[in-house]
């Protein structure tokens, strides 16, 4: 049974994605519950444009190519959701990455946003900054950015452990509003007491759906919900000893 389970999950997930894609032709995709960590971001974008200070995005140190790739990709898609509006407002955010493999993908987001506006020459190559390969050093580097640079708001989304507390501490000290989306337990434990809007575990992967609001992201959340009930069913079967 355990050998076919992965296939079962994949096939059902693909089925749900296809089914919601087809059914989507008739009615709108049902709404998802509000997530405070993400819902305030568009407003903060506007305030950041007014005050002229950028929003700092901390994308964590999940290497692309390793086992934390998809966390970093979900973070990049959330960033992509605000890239166009931020570029239009004229205050592109400041992005700090903890792994060199995230750097090219993050830079591409802004390069394409400026291309879409028709002014690729206004792309500023220091929008995305690589801070340092070791997680603790990365967190200390980002904390230093928050302490000494002009940041209007701080968004932490990506793969980090308890060193995330260094970053939230620095932001809290300067009274910078922040929202944190983390999926690893040490990071969640360390950041829960901080003054931040929190998106816990799986809610990080709802970031693209809330911010970029593209239909395919919202459909993927639907599939996630269906799989959730499938897993609950499997747990109950396991408890009753049926497999």
């Amino acid at each position, binding site marked *: 049974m355990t050998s076919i389970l992965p296939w079962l999950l994949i096939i059902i997930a693909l089925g749900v994605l296809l089914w919601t894609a087809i059914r989507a032709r008739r009615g709108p995709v049902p709404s998802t519950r509000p997530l405070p960590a993400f819902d305030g971001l568009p407003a903060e974008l506007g305030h950041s444009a007014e005050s002229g200070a950028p929003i700092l995005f901390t994308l964590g140190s999940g290497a692309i190519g390793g086992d934390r790739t998809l966390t970093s990709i979900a973070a990049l898609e959330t960033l992509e959701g605000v890239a166009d509006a931020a570029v239009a407002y004229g205050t592109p955010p400041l992005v700090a990455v903890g792994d060199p493999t995230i750097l090219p993908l993050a830079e591409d987001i802004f390069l394409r946003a400026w291309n879409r506006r028709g002014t690729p020459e206004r792309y500023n190559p220091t929008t995305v900054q690589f*801070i340092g390969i070791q997680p603790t050093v990365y967190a200390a580097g980002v904390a230093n950015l928050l302490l000494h640079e002009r940041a209007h708001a701080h968004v932490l989304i990506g793969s980090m452990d308890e060193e995330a507390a260094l970053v939230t501490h620095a932001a809290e000290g300067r009274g910078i509003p922040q929202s944190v989306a983390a999926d690893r337990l040490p990071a969640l*434990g360390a950041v829960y007491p901080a003054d931040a809007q929190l998106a816990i575990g799986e809610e990080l992967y709802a970031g693209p759906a809330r911010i970029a609001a593209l239909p395919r992201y919202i459909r993927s959340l639907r599939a996630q919900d269906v799989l959730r009930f499938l897993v609950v069913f499997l747990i109950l079967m*396991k408890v009753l000893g049926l497999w």
Partner: protein
Amino acid sequence: MTADLIGLIAGTLLTLLVLSYILGDNPLYRLALHLLVGATVGYGVAVTTVTVLQTVLPALQSDSPRVRALIPLVLGILLLFKGFPRWSAWGNFSTALLVGVGAAVAMGGALVGTIIPQIAAVGSLNVWLREGSAGLINGLIVMIGTIGALLAFAFAVPRQPALRRLWNGSVGVLGQIGRLFLLAALGAAFGTALTASLTVLVGRVYAVVMGIQQLLTLIGMSSG
């Protein structure tokens, strides 16, 4: 012997610089931090390039098909085009391979390493009963907690009012319970993270105290 002495002084001084952050953010801490970021990145680049060269170069000379080592080298060089906004499109192949392989590794890890084992680890009734009534109670608590924590994240809320009431009654309530279990896990994670980092902090303070004592004895020795 002087190398170790200078090293001891440097190490103790740098540790004090960073510890000064506890009393308040100050330029010394900022200086130490910039030293740290620079040193770490420099060290990282050196180790990574040497290691990759050691694995790639022998593969180039060895009998095994050269293509095995050539393709990643070419893709790696192509990735460097990402540094120039005008030709960054040529780096798309390398990032594509990184994203493709990474996605599969992460998915494989999630499926084989996390979801299936965690479902299996909930155990079953007879497994719990083996440890008597306490085992049964703990097992039930773990099952309810796990299902509750899972349902706490449910995203889509049904639209029809009738269905919504049913939903809130069942999934909603279980979700609230699940949220408490989540907070129990978060509190535990906070405690363990604090213990681990405290051990490191105590170690650093201990190293500074020992370092100063050693220096004092040395100065005392040389002057005495």
